């Protein structure tokens, strides 16, 4: 009886801590949603009136639309480059000798470990020489570098749960390495690749620090513009844009989950 009681108390603690963590993790994110529907001309919480005016302001502003377009194009291009590149890199590392793999893994994780501001400064100085500052290509290259580790790590973990003999079997049965990779290995790590692609997309879309230094003018990303806007005027448009960004992220996340689930059901 005493043990059961103890377990109940433990369970209660777990619930309390769990709720507290969720509260502090999610609430600051969700708070912008009601703020975005405010009728006031400054950020207020809780909002006192309701309107769509800040969404209208966002959607009709050429500057905001241009920045949104830049960000979406950059995120899509980053995803399209980082996903195949990172997947192939993960595949290559998976096939390498353990000594090489371990060394390369450290190198590959670097962009996650090194403070982004250092990377940003480095990229900025390098781009100054190459003439890539304030260009879309510059943003995409830098974002790809940031996104690669996420793709590599997720795809490598997917490959770890995959019986590599299958690819050898396919090759012995007459498939070239590329064909075996495409028809046998890729379908089985598809979910990892999709997750990696999602992370790459979000990494680019959310990136602020490098964009602050490297993007600008017509090619300013939305995060850069939001940051500047926050500094200059506290305008609820920011809340409306944030809400849109949250929706995009959630939709992408749910999409990846649904694809993953349909795959599992299929199994």
């Amino acid at each position: 009886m005493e043990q059961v009681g103890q377990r109940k108390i433990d369970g209660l603690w777990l619930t309390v801590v769990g709720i507290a963590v969720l509260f502090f993790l999610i609430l600051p994110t969700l708070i912008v949603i009601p703020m975005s529907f405010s009728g006031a001309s400054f950020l207020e919480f809780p909002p006192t009136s309701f309107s769509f005016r800040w969404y209208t302001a966002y959607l009709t502003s050429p500057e905001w639309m241009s920045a949104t377009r830049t960000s979406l194009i950059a995120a899509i291009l980053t995803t399209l480059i980082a996903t195949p590149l990172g997947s192939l890199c993960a595949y290559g590392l998976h096939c390498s000798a353990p000594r090489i793999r371990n060394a390369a893994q450290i190198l590959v994780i670097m962009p996650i470990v090194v403070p982004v501001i250092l990377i940003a400064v480095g990229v900025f100085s390098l781009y100054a020489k190459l003439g890539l500052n304030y260009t879309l290509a510059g943003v995409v290259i830098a974002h790809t570098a940031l996104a690669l580790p996420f793709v590599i790590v997720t795809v490598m973990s997917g490959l770890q749960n995959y019986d590599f003999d299958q690819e050898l079997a396919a090759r012995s049965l007459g498939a070239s390495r590329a064909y075996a990779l495409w028809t046998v290995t890729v379908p089985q790590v598809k979910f990892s690749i999709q997750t990696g692609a999602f992370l790459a997309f979000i990494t680019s879309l959310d990136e602020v620090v490098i964009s602050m230094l490297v993007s600008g003018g017509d090619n300013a990303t939305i995060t850069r513009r939001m940051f500047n806007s926050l500094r200059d005027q506290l305008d609820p448009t920011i809340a409306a844009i944030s809400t849109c960004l949250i929706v995009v992220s959630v939709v992408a996340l749910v999409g990846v989950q649904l694809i993953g689930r349909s795959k599992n059901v299929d199994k």
Partner: protein
Amino acid sequence: MSSATQSLPIEISSLCKAYGSVKALDDVSLNIAAGEFLTLLGPSGSGKTTLLMALAGFSRPDSGSIRFGDQEVIATPPHKRGLGMVFQSYALFPFMTVAENVAYPLKIRGVSKSDQKTHAERALDTVQLGGYGDRRITQLSGGQRQRVALARAMVFEPQIILMDEPLSALDKQLREHMQIELKALHQKLDATVVYVTHDQREALTMSDRIAVVNHGRIEQVETPERLYRQPSSFFVADFVGESVSLPVKVANDTAQLGERALKSDSPIAQGSGGHRLVIRPELLEVTSGAVPETANDLSGHVHDIIYQGDSVLVIVQHDSAGQINVRVPANRAGQTGLPSKGERIGLALHPEDTIIVPEHAS
């Protein structure tokens, strides 16, 4: 299967492969006849899998030559070697159906959809899985998966089939059943089979010839019976079959156990590290009276008697040389006149069963 294809001989010469300072393959030469079932037998880490991977093209030897028929393949990539291969893990594609798995090599070869279907069905029939085509791999038992892997490896009628411990994941009964089935299947197919295993009994059961591999070298290549009865080294004698060995002295082509000269039908093989007498427990004869003059006398006292179901293992303390095991059938004939513990037992080792081997083959 149709006999449009003809099996190919394999000629391996002076193959070397080193991983750092470890020689995985140390100057290996081996000729495998067309249509032969050859087993590479050895303990783990002996190099047998490295040799198979070299044949498959997945591991590039440092030097040497591999010929399939009259074609040098050492630089040929795996997918152009035209081999069927069966893996220990089966390596079936779990997201494809049984039929899709079996048809995979046909699809690559550009065979038409309808031909793919008929060939895959016929291959599945051959491995007694007719009608399983639409099943998913996850719905099959271990033995069935192994059969699918076999069907997939032979559906395109390869001239050479490689098998890497294909039965080791199965339980004992199924494994023994599949050994006999595989042997029968080999007789039906016109293909040279190279089979890797660490299970000596499996090797003896299935092979035309066995190549015993140790430390990256081939110790001996022989038919199962000759390998068992005339091992060339102590390693082979010890690894293949059950045995007890006693050190002997060799001088002037005669082996001596203690003070007594041993009579043996076969000449004593040369080698290094001294010689040993290898005694197979089932080859010793229990004599009721004195051991006949023509045989070697290994009599001693019964130390222990162990009942093992199909047979009884008698542990005998030899007068001078140590302990010897004798296996006696557990039927009445075997048990009649069997002395009890502590009593004297007459043991005859006939010259044709007297195996004397060098510690290391020359």
